[in-house]
């Protein structure tokens, strides 16, 4: 597959360099570790630090969400691979303002080990309290009985948003963790894959699908999904995705939700709006109110084709946080 790169082995370094140079008012790269980025604005004493991170290849996630109302620090891994403990730890030390730091990351074996080691080191070496919330929104990744095994995908945006807003409003670490955990528990995502992505270093497609095929539940890194089938019209695909979400997390008539229709990389905004149109039809038919919606590329998988639908159920507290202002290089909300 064609890519505009210089050298496959330094794509992450060159990407970070460009990003930091593009948004100097928002982000700062740490001298101690080139894979650790923090907000360029000084955060106030006593604010809980919000740290996110994961593999590269999901841009604008995760580093696009550094900014007020969202994350204070990001640790950047290799492509589709968890960052090691060092950048996590270095960013933690900088963003801790005495009230501790929350780690938000997807529930993947590598992330669990690396962020876990970093949390232990932060406590041991610097006495920084760390709370962790693992994102598990991907319905297709494990059955309901094994919900704790589910992976995190596009919904991490909402968990970061909730935690970022709570931290901004001066909540303490326990409360920021509680709010982030609630956002995760009140949220489900279902995705569909159409075309593969390829890693810069191998250049080979991450999976195979025929020209007329789609795959329901395809993973964020090209992990095979739960069902391959013939490509269907957008409405039918969305019907299936929303059906699986609501079967897993029933939502009553009159309840409020936030919706995210996320593109995986090469799927166009046109397709995403066509999909959102159907999500809105289904929810309004059921009397479910869409309080706020997000349509676009929030968390991608390189140039993968496909999209996901995330529904976050809102109580009063979460609705307030979803409405909270944010100012990040890749996401601004007034």
């Amino acid at each position, binding site marked *: 597959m064609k890519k505009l790169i210089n050298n496959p082995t330094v794509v992450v370094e060159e990407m970070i360099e460009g990003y930091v140079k593009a948004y100097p008012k928002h982000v700062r790269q740490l001298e101690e570790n080139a894979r650790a980025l923090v907000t360029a604005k000084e955060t106030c004493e006593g604010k809980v630090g919000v740290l996110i991170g994961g593999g590269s290849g999901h841009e604008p996630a995760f580093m696009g969400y550094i900014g007020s109302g969202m994350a204070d620090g990001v640790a950047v891994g*290799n492509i589709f691979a968890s960052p090691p*403990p060092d950048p996590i730890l270095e960013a933690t030390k900088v963003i801790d303002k005495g009230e501790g730091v929350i780690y938000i990351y997807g529930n993947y074996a590598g992330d669990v080990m690396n962020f876990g080691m970093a949390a232990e080191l932060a406590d041991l070496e610097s006495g920084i309290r760390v709370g962790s919330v693992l994102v598990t929104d991907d319905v297709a990744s494990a059955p309901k009985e094994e919900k704790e095994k589910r992976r995190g995908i596009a919904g991490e945006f909402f968990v970061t948003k909730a935690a970022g807003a709570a931290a901004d409003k001066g909540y303490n670490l326990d409360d920021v963790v509680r709010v982030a955990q609630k956002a995760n528990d009140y949220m489900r995502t279902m995705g569909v894959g159409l075309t593969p992505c390829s890693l810069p270093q191998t250049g080979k497609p991450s999976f195979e699908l025929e020209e007329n095929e789609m795959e329901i539940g395809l993973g964020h890194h*090209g992990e095979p999904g739960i069902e391959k089938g013939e490509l269907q019209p957008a409405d039918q695909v969305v019907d299936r995705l929303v059906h699986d979400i609501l079967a897993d997390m029933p939502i009553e008539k009159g309840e409020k939700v936030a919706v995210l229709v996320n593109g995986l990389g090469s799927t166009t905004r046109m397709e995403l709006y066509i999909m959102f149109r159907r999500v809105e039809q289904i929810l309004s038919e059921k009397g479910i109110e869409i309080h706020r919606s997000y349509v676009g590329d929030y968390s991608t998988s390189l140039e993968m084709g496909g999209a996901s639908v995330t529904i976050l159920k809102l109580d009063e507290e979460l609705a307030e946080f979803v409405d909270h202002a944010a100012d990040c290089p890749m996401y601004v909300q007034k």
Partner: protein
Amino acid sequence: MKMTAEDLKTFLKNVVVMIEEQKEYLCELDRKLGDGDHGVTMSIGWQAVNEKLEAELKDEQDCGKICITTGRTFLSAVGSSVGPLYATGFMRGAKAFQGKSELTDVELKDFWVAFVEGIKERGKAEVGDKTMIDTLQPTLESLQTNFEKSNDFLAAFSEAVIAAEQGMESTKEMLSKRGRSSRLGERSLGTKDPGATSAYLILDTFLTTIKSAQVA
């Protein structure tokens, strides 16, 4: 048998070369089960170790330090899941080598026992989950049993590598239960686990290294 710090570094360099040779094959296995990057990840980590071998480890004679640096360097370069796993293996194993420039049979055995125990503790996978543990656990059991009988590391490790190979092959018929590939269910059948495969290749490289060190 005897193994020197230079032999230990030769082993690490042999792993660097072996991983480069097997990089594509490991990615190919991983494409069937995961995101197809296992060979790339191992290569990134071992290339970083190689840089240390050519610089600060060049004259290092403390086998413990060599292993600690190897573990830390590998972890910092890759993160991922193999980073913490191999880092824990090398750093736990390093305790058996601390302050030593020549290694005895018992120390070599203790190294690999601690190496495998460390990885098991960090990753919490069980035999049958289709992971590197399916290679490492049979290696551990075989090494301990055979070493108890003979106190001969080379003989016991030769047996252990045979057990490792069988363990690796057994992953072909297993369903993935850990990591990203666990969502595959039955579709994971028929392909060897890439992590189990690279673990075997590292053990095999250790065996060939110590064999040729004895001849020399």
